[in-house]
């Protein structure tokens, strides 16, 4: 099973609160974002970036996962799911956020994601954005 899908199921299924609450907003968010990423046809380079994104970032920024949930509180669902964002995600912004961290997201070291890997992820995320 795809890692991103597993993570989405985990946060929805394993959170005691999510199971017991009547907090409609939270449940709607979690369920609304648990859709899988579109199987978009990509160039080999972008496909590598997508694969790296799922491995390195998917645990938080996959559909329905915690980073996506945090972003969804501040923006539209499509914008919150980074892989589906249609604009405003230039590569230079991605690399800066990954290396410096932002809000609740910690900075990533060059062991966690090398510069070369980060460039591939950034190019993938930026594919729909103006440079």
């Amino acid at each position: 099973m795809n890692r991103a899908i597993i993570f989405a199921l985990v946060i929805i299924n394993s959170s005691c609160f999510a199971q017991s609450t009547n907090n409609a907003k939270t449940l709607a968010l979690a369920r609304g974002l648990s859709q899988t990423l579109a199987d978009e046809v990509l160039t080999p380079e972008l496909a590598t970036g997508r694969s790296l994104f799922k491995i390195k970032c998917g645990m938080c920024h996959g559909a329905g996962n915690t980073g996506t949930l945090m972003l969804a509180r501040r923006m539209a669902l499509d914008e919150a799911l980074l892989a589906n964002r249609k604009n405003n995600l230039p590569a230079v912004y991605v690399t800066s956020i990954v290396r410096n961290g932002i809000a609740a997201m910690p900075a990533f070291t060059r062991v966690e994601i090398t510069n070369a890997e980060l460039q591939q992820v950034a190019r993938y995320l930026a594919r729909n954005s103006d440079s």
Partner: protein
Amino acid sequence: MSPTLPPKLSAKQFDVALAAFAKVVGSEWVFSSEQDRHAYGDPYEIGERSAHAPSAAVAPANVEEVQAIVRLANVHHTPLWPITRGKNMGYGGAAPRMAGSVVLDLGRMKRIIEVDPKTGYCLIEPGVGFFDLHDYLRTNNIPLWMSVPGNAWGSVMGNALEHGNGTMGDHSANLCGMEVVLPEGELLRTGMGAMRGNKTWSLWKYGFGPSWDQTFMQSNFGVVTKAAMWLMPEPPASMRLSMNVPNADDIGWLVDVLTPLRIGGVIDQSFGIGSYGRVALTSQRSEWFEGKGKMPDEVVRRIVEQFGGWWNFSIRLYGHESVIEAKAAVIEAAFAAHTKQRFTISRWKRGEPYEQSGAGIPGVGPLHIVNWHGGRGGHIGYSPILPANGALAVKQLHKTLERFAQFDLDYYGTYYINGRTVQNINLILFNRDDPQMVKNVRGLFAALIEDAKKDGYAEYRTHIDYMDAVADTFDFNNHIQRRFNEKVKDAIDPNGIIAPGKSGIWPRNYRTRK
């Protein structure tokens, strides 16, 4: 900004040390830019980051490189702070206890060397994360299950070495045999591994004579480069029994009812009884309360109502269907004496969807708690170990609630049912950009340490800021444990290279930095 250098080292000497490290690992694996140093800092620092600022980081690829770096560190008087993956969130992340230390990042060492489905273990390197191991087991259809912590971003080995817990209890209890680079660069294998070619290194925890594994947990006596971790063979069936319990004081009877079940083996796994504070897992404080300071009682009442109770927990049973059904009946009977509530029960049998099985599936959902206040959040935990006694648990709860109220912070506690003890994990969530809140967090933490000491309790693990304070509470016979640790440290690490200050253990050359 110029780096905080290792104590007593000039910039020139430091550059010479880094150049020597680069010759071992390659210059691309020595990190000394400001951005690198930032990335190895504490992501949830409580106040000043400079107190734990690393000077640089170096990332070896294998044990030989670790040995070479450690030997060079001795030559160049460069203290090293070993990390596995640096995700010790809430305890300092990757940041060193002593500012100026060079982070020894073992994240590149991520080989899963051996997995034996029959005897149920894996032999792994420090950089193997929970996701890595889980993927490996699933991809290769290996019928072994792993225990995962709430935040499973980190290293399997690193978490166990820090006495972490997970879905199946105490991770350090599942470690069996280690390979360790000693502070002067020699390689030790513990337990049966001390015999060349021994076939039971990963199966039998002891060796002949003293067993050293504990010596390398939460310590600075060596760098663990391999360890075996026991895993659970996939059971034929599992069951989850969940319950919400309405009142704060119910924690008393819960502890008293569950303890004999846990000690007696009816319940095999340790598990947490979480308070309504778990609301932070999926929501933000502003959804409940917009004001400043701790949430008022009426807001807490509303959360408890929606949460379904003050407390919430799930017990997992694993094994043969007939056995777990019988165990469930025993548990239900024990609860019937105290409550009319019934467990919500879900069952799983082999062959049914894996996601419903109760296997440890890694995730990082609980990191959402740092978003409680919004902005740049953080958390630390104060977690004393208590005797498994309901009256003491209630007393502890009220005392802790009073302290959280005194320091104007929202309560988020969990009582972890271990058997003979209860681990009282108190998560303190804060906004790093609110100086008053940070000050209150510090006040609360200090008060909790003091309270626990008076009651005869101590923490099982702590943040780098509080290692000295917690170590100080271990004061039997004029702090003989610390004096003994220091003697050992000075004997095996005369240059004070490995993790100065870790767990309050300072080598002679840095002891004044306490």
